């Protein structure tokens, strides 16, 4: 193990709260190792800082297995770091080298205000969901399985879009800070299923309006979102959202 020790210099964004000005702070970690996950590496640093009675680095995390979408870290200029289709919590230190300088920044977008250090407020995504990312169903008793026939192909595709974990990496990586991939994934998912039918037109109109109100940018079709998305949602979702909108216009 000792031969696998990695010395890292971490350049981390520190910011007291939303109202304060932030700055970068450098930390040297002498004994990281390649088997650590990125978050374990940060835990390790924080333990040391606390032992030294210094303030630890605040970062968001929960599941640590790529399903909750809270570990939003901009690592060396790429959302979720250098490994594609991987959330920051699933990233391992073996993708870095001994002696590396690693810059860690929070998601930067007007719609994602910084709470502290690397933690941002992503409620804007929840408000987009509340504007139409739901279906109306009876909740009194569980319906029979397979009562509504759905083509296998559509069900699979809807499932692909439904894998979005709402992490916001698409916004963070987008040169325009657009939330089109997130919103597109939600709309595309419901558009493929009969359960999404009743609210279909209202949904796309209201969710797109909400995206606008939250102050996200426009989509310039850079497709950077697809490249950083930890679950690989395709920009096909955005094309589908646009078709849905045009469909809603037809009345």
């Amino acid at each position, binding site marked *: 193990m000792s031969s696998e020790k990695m010395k890292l210099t971490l350049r981390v964004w520190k910011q007291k709260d939303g109202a304060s000005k932030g700055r970068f702070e450098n930390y040297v970690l002498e004994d990281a190792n390649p088997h650590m996950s990125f978050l374990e590496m940060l835990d390790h640093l924080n333990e040391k800082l606390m032992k030294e009675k210094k303030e630890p680095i605040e970062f968001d995390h929960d599941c640590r297995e790529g399903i909750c979408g809270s570990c939003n870290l901009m690592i060396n200029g790429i959302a979720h770091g250098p490994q594609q289709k991987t959330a920051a919590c699933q990233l391992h230190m073996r993708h870095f080298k001994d002696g590396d300088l690693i810059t860690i920044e929070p998601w*930067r977008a007007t719609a994602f205000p910084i709470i502290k250090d690397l933690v941002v407020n992503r409620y804007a995504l929840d408000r987009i969901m509340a504007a139409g990312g739901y279906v109306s169903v009876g909740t009194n008793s569980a319906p029979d399985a397979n009562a509504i026939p759905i083509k296998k192909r559509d069900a699979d595709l809807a499932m692909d879009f439904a894998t979005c974990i709402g992490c916001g990496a698409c916004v963070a990586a987008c040169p325009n800070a657009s939330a089109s991939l997130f919103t597109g994934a939600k709309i595309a998912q419901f558009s493929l299923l009969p359960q999404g039918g009743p609210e279909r037109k209202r949904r796309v*109109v209201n969710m*797109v309006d909400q995206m606008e109100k939250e102050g996200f940018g426009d989509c*310039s079709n*850079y*497709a950077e979102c697809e*490249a950083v998305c930890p679950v690989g949602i395709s920009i096909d979702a955005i094309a589908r959202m646009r078709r849905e909108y045009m469909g809603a216009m037809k009345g």
Partner: protein
Amino acid sequence: MPSLLHALQTTIGRKILTGITGIFLTLFLVVHLAGNFSLFSSNPEAFNAYTEFLHSLGTLLYLVEIILVIVFLLHAYIGISIWLRKRKARPENYSVYKTSGEPSRQTIASRTMAITGVVILVFTIVHLFTFKWGPGIAEGYVTYIDGQEVRDLKRLVNDIFQNEFYVIGYTAVMILIGFHLRHGIWSSMQSLGAMSPKLSPVIYTIGGLIALALAVGFLFVPIWIYITGGV
């Protein structure tokens, strides 16, 4: 259902408008290039006959010109407003920022759309002053087709492209238009939702080839005239 006016002011509406206007302008470039190539026709008066034919359309030509100007300005206005909106959506930039690579379409071409666009805008104004509102019959650029006195635009083109500044300037701008269209043609299809994961790489390649063909086609004329001394 939203009103059309509301829809056009959403992020979707803005993209549909840039897409439609972008395709319209690209089609205009195709027609324009075809016109340019009549310079190389075996009939030496083909180019002047073509420009004379356009002017003989009278009101119809004005109508087309007005539509072109509106489409052009609308495209430029929305393009620049998308770019300005970005600065509001992320006022503080990352200190380190990199693309994650494929399947990203973040390239020099896509990142410079606003810059290449503004160059096209300025170039278009200069271009119109050089040719459309440039020297005509009164300044001696006269020729005769079927005994009729017409403007000798072909000689003006030949004269202008003896000047290396024009040749270099035009070549540079045509390369930038090629960059604009390298991202633009594919992007317009994605903006209009006319895309699927299978189609996307195909359209991206075709878009690149059309961009290349248009850029090379346009810059060929000034360079050829400069090298050969005129057509």
